[in-house]
C-alpha cells in the first residue's frame, strides 16, 4: 500500500500534470473538464437543494410556515430551473460521459477538446445568468415558462432566467455533438458497435435527444423573450397567437429532456449490475436498442403533458397511445437487469446498492407513469402532487441514484482513491428510505387532488405533507453524507489501484487516475463487452 501511495504521487497523471488555476481553466483534457463540470453541478445542486429544503419546511403548515406566496413561487421556480437545466441535464452526460466516453472507446480525448471546454464555459455563463435572475429578485414562472404568464404577466426576472436556460442549452447541444462524433469516428481498433459498453449506447441515445431537441426549446425561449420585449409576439392571444403552441414547442424538447436525465442513468446501471454480479449483461442487444428506441419514441409523446390544456382530444388520444409505447423499452431494460443477477455472483458494494435502488425506484416511477399516460386518470391527476411524485421518482429516485451509483463506481478511477464503503452503503440506504418517505405521500396527496405549486393548501392535506417533509429531512442527510466522505477520500482514502472492482472495460485497463493521454498506446479490442469469466 505504501508503495502504491508513492506511485500515486510520483507517477504523472491527469490530476498532477499541471497545477494552478490556469491549468484547469484552460485545459482541454476531457477528464479535467469532467471535474470542472462535477464541481459546478454540485454547486447548482446545492442551490436547488436549498430551495427544496425551504419548500418542504414551508409546506408543513397548510397556510405556509414561512413565506409569502410570491416568495414560495420564486423558490419552486428556482428549484425547478436549477435542478432540471443546471443539475440533471448535465449530470451524467457532462461529468461521467465526459470522463468515460473517450476512455471506454479507447481514444485519447473527445473529437473536439476545445469545443468541450467551450461547452463548459457556455454552461457557466448560462448558470450565472440564472443565478443573477435568482439573486436579483427571483423568477416566478416555474421552470416551464408558460405563456402568457412568462411573456406578459410575470414581473420577475424572466428574461435573464430564460436567457440562462437558452445559453446553457448550447452547452448541452455541443456536448451531445462531441459525443456522437467521438463515438462514430474515434473508436479503438476492434471496438465495433456491438462491443461497446451499454453506457456508450445510452450516451449515444442521449446525445441524439440533446442534438435534435434542445434547439427547439432554444428558439421557443427566443420567441418568449421577443414577446416580452416587444409586448407582442407569436404566442400573444391579442393577435390570435395561441399559448398552447408554446406548450407544444416547449414539451417537444422538455419531454425528451426527461430521457436526457434517465437514459444515462440506465447506462450506468447496466455497467454496475454486470460488474457486481460478475456476469455478462442479459440481452445486450435488447438493452442497447431499447436505449435508442426510448430516444426516438420520446419525441413522439410530448402531448401527454397537455391532455387537459385545451389541446384537441383527438391529438390527446394519439399522444396517449404513443406514450404507452415508452413503457415497453423501459420494461425490457428492467427485466434484463433483473435477469442479469440470476446465477450471478452478487456483491453488495455501495455502487451496487445504488444500482438496485435505481431499479426499484425507477420501476415505481415508471409504472405510475401509466396513470398519467391514461387519458381518463390523467384528467384527475394532472398538475397535482401525483405528477410531482411521479417525476421525482424518475428524476431523483432514478437519475440521481444512477448518478451517485456511477460516481461511486468510477470514483477510484477519477481520483485514484477509495472511499469508506461502509459509509457509502449507509448513505445509499438512508437515501432510499428518505426518498420513499418524501415522495410516496405525494402520490397519495395528489390523488386526493392537491394541486402542485400551491403555497397554501387545505388543512386536510397536512398529514401527508408533514410526512413528506419529514422524509425530506432524512433525504437531505442522505445526500450530505457522500459529500463529506467523498471529499475526505480525495486526500485520505486508500489508494485504489487500476481496477478495484475487478470490472471489465477499457477504462479499467489504464492506471487510476489515468494519464493525460488515457492510454500508453491505443488498445486493440478483441472481446465482447462484459467478458466476465474469460
Amino acid at each position, binding site marked *: 500500500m505504501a508503495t502504491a501511495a508513492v506511485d500515486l504521487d510520483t507517477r504523472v497523471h491527469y490530476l498532477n500534470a499541471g497545477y494552478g488555476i490556469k491549468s484547469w481553466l484552460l485545459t482541454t483534457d476531457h477528464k479535467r473538464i469532467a471535474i470542472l463540470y462535477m464541481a459546478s453541478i454540485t454547486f447548482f445542486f446545492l442551490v436547488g437543494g436549498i430551495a427544496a429544503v425551504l419548500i418542504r419546511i414551508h409546506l408543513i403548515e397548510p397556510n405556509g410556515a414561512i413565506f409569502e406566496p410570491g416568495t414560495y413561487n420564486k423558490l419552486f421556480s428556482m428549484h425547478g430551473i436549477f435542478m432540471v437545466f443546471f443539475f440533471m441535464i448535465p449530470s451524467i452526460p457532462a461529468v461521467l460521459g465526459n470522463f468515460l466516453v473517450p476512455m471506454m472507446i479507447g481514444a485519447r480525448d473527445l473529437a473536439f477538446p476545445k469545443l468541450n471546454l467551450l461547452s463548459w464555459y457556455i454552461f457557466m455563463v448560462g448558470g450565472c445568468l440564472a443565478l443573477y435572475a435568482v439573486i436579483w429578485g427571483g423568477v416566478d414562472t416555474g421552470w416551464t415558462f408558460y405563456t402568457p404568464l412568462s411573456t406578459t*404577466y410575470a414581473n420577475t426576472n424572466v428574461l435573464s432566467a430564460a436567457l440562462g436556460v437558452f445559453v446553457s442549452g448550447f452547452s448541452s447541444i455541443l456536448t451531445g455533438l462531441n459525443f456522437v462524433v467521438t463515438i462514430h469516428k474515434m473508436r479503438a481498433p476492434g471496438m465495433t458497435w456491438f462491443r461497446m459498453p451499454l453506457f456508450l449506447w445510452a450516451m449515444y441515445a442521449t446525445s441524439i435527444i440533446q442534438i435534435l431537441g434542445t434547439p427547439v426549446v432554444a428558439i421557443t425561449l427566443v420567441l418568449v423573450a421577443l414577446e416580452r420585449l416587444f409586448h407582442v409576439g407569436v404566442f400573444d*392571444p391579442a393577435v390570435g397567437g395561441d399559448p*398552447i*403552441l408554446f406548450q*407544444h414547442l416547449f414539451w417537444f424538447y422538455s419531454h425528451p429532456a426527461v430521457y436526457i436525465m434517465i437514459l444515462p442513468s440506465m447506462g450506468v446501471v447496466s455497467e454496475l449490475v454486470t460488474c457486481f454480479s460478475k456476469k455478462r449483461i442479459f440481452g445486450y442487444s435488447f438493452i442497447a436498442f431499447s436505449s435508442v428506441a426510448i430516444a426516438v419514441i420520446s*419525441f413522439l409523446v410530448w402531448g401527454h403533458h397537455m391532455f387537459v390544456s385545451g*389541446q384537441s382530444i*383527438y391529438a390527446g388520444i394519439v399522444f396517449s397511445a404513443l406514450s404507452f409505447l415508452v413503457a415497453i423499452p423501459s420494461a425490457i431494460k428492467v427485466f434484463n437487469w433483473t435477469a442479469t443477477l440470476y446465477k450471478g455472483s452478487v456483491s453488495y458494494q455501495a455502487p451496487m446498492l445504488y444500482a438496485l435502488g435505481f431499479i426499484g425506484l425507477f420501476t415505481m416511477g415508471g409504472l405510475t407513469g401509466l396513470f398519467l399516460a391514461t387519458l381518463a386518470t390523467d384528467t384527475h391527476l394532472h398538475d397535482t402532487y401525483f405528477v410531482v411524485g411521479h417525476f421525482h421518482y424518475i428524476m431523483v429516485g432514478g437519475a440521481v441514484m444512477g448518478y451517485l451509483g456511477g460516481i461511486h463506481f468510477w470514483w477510484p478511477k477519477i481520483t485514484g482513491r477509495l472511499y469508506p464503503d461502509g459509509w457509502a452503503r449507509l448513505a445509499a440506504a438512508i437515501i432510499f428510505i428518505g426518498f420513499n418517505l418524501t415522495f410516496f405521500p405525494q402520490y397519495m396527496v395528489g390523488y386526493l387532488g392537491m394541486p402542485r405549486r400551491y403555497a397554501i393548501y387545505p388543512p386536510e392535506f397536512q398529514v401527508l405533507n408533514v410526512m413528506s417533509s419529514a422524509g425530506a429531512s432524512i433525504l437531505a442527510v442522505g445526500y450530505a453524507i457522500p459529500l463529506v466522505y467523498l471529499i475526505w477520500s480525495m486526500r485520505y482514502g486508500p489508494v485504489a489501484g487500476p481496477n478495484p472492482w475487478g470490472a471489465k472495460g477499457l477504462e479499467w485497463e489504464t492506471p487510476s487516475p489515468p494519464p493525460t493521454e488515457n492510454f500508453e498506446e491505443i488498445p486493440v479490442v478483441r472481446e465482447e463487452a462484459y467478458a466476465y469469466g474469460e
Partner: protein
Amino acid sequence: MPDHVVPKKIYFAIFASLLALTGLTTGMAYVNLGPWNTIVALIIACCKATLVALFFMHLRWSPRVMRVVLLSALLWLAILISLTTTDFFSRDWIPIPEGWESSLLRRENFNRNPRGQPATWREPQSFARNAGRDASTNLEVLTPRAGTSGS
C-alpha cells in the same frame, strides 16, 4: 485526401439552374394556380435545396453517415410539424357549444389595448345576453381595464 474535387463545370451548371429556379418560382407567383401556388413554390424550393446540398455541400460524394444525419434532422422536423398540426387541425372537430360559435371560431374578437398593456377580448355575447340585470353589476363592466403590465 479522400475528398472529391468537383470540376468547376458542375458548380457553374448548378449555379445556373439555381438562378433559373429562382426566376421560375418568382414567375409562378404571378400565375393563378389557386392552392397549387404554395405547393409549386415549395416543390421548387425543395429542388433548389437538394441541389445545394448534393453538389455545393458535397453530399453526393460524402460518407453515408452524413446523409443519415441530414435525413434524421428532416424526419424530426416532420415529427414536430405533423404532431403539432394534429392538434391544431382536429380541435374544430369537437362539437361547439351553441351560441358560442362566433366567438369560439373567430379569433378576430380581440380588442387591442394600448401598447404595452395586455389585451383582453370582448366579452362573449352570451354574457351580455344572459345577464338580465343592471348594467353596473354586469360582468362586462368589470372586464375592460388596464391589466398588469409586463416587464
